[in-house]
């Protein structure tokens, strides 16, 4: 029990230091070469982030055939099937972090960014946030999603 808490503290301390902050991410032609955390992404976690409405909710706009149990996948964006064959890891990291760096003016939200926004709200409450807004996904969640996308081969 105690050990778990300690481990958790240790882990968050480690990631806090190794993590690249949203404003410090360097994009090269839309791509982000370096891992945001230095910790390998977990594709299973990534899949959860992609289908959870409060997290990535990527399936709101994209279909992924490899997730047949996720109902109501949208089609505002292209199907993500075979994404790993169209894009390198660094490009996928760039797209998931801030898609507008790859696709000019894209409707795809920027998941690893803290602003500036026009009238940002506190999640889906419709109210102004209390303090500073964190990015929509954490650095590790971005890595997890990238790891999952890398499994999408046709």
């Amino acid at each position, binding site marked *: 029990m105690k050990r778990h808490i300690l481990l958790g503290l240790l882990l968050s301390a480690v990631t806090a230091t190794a993590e690249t902050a949203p404003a410090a991410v360097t994009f090269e032609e839309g791509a982000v070469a370096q891992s945001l955390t230095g910790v390998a992404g977990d594709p299973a976690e990534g899949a959860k982030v992609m289908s959870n409405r409060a997290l990535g909710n990527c399936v709101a706009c994209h*279909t992924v055939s490899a997730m047949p149990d996720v109902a109501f996948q949208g089609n*505002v*964006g292209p199907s993500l099937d075979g994404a790993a064959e169209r894009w390198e890891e660094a490009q996928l990291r760039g797209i998931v972090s801030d898609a507008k760096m790859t696709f000019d003016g894209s409707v795809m939200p920027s998941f690893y960014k803290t602003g500036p926004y026009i009238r*940002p709200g506190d999640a*889906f409450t419709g109210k102004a946030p209390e303090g500073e807004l964190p990015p929509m996904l954490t650095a590790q969640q971005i890595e997890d999603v990238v790891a999952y996308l890398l499994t999408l081969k046709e």
Partner: protein
Amino acid sequence: MKIKTLAGTCAAAALAFAGLSAWAGPVDDTLVINEEIEIVTHTTSAPDYIDGLSEQYSGWHFREDDTRDMQRDDFDNPGMLGVEAAMEDWNTEDGAEGKSCASCHEAPESMAGVRTQMPKFSETKGTMMTLEMYINECRTERMGAEAWGWDDAAMVNMTALISSVSRGMPVNVAVDGPAAPFWELGKEMYYTRYGQLELSCANCHEQNYGNFIRADHLSQGQVNGFPVYRLKDAKLSSIHNRFKGCIRDTRAETFKPGSPEFIALETYVASRGNGLSVEGPSVRN
């Protein structure tokens, strides 16, 4: 290098992907209410001051068969219960002057055509007025009664009654003259990418109508059908209430029903529907 052409290619790929949620554009169907009132729910030419639309569709075209059918007959349209409730209020005296709506306006049919022009610039008030504001002006200044809240059931029901007698008449909102500055502000809002998701009205309702965002089949976000009876909420809902929800869904701090911002936005959005028929109260999911 920014990839602009890819978007087109990807969209085509998405169309070709007839998988989990097949793309479905607007349903090809026509609406006649009570076998009598013909509703223009589709036009093949949008007004020329609307940059991003070549055709207009009422939200009716994007709903399921059974939802669309509910609008074909007033007995099946749950929004008509609100109209009935408002008929009571229409004839009931209220306020210090001891007057009802009927005291000045006789039957509700006298309101035919009113909804087509809303919002409208009021010369006496020197401002843009929505139907809700005209209703409250009568209540407070002519009846000596309390103003209704924007989303009070009595208010939404009364807007349903007044809309219902204009059904089938073309929306015809003024965009020039004194309306112009309100219209301009509304247009600017329509293309502003609000919230943490950075999505504008146009991103969803102009660029992506016909597509699905999760389970939602995106319409053009027209307001000709308001107030709409939303099956999900089991009640009638005002235009501003819908705007509030859409902006909230972009993870934004939204605006209040009745705010100057929403009055301007309503002016612009209503004008995007000029030429469609008034359809409210309509039924949506």
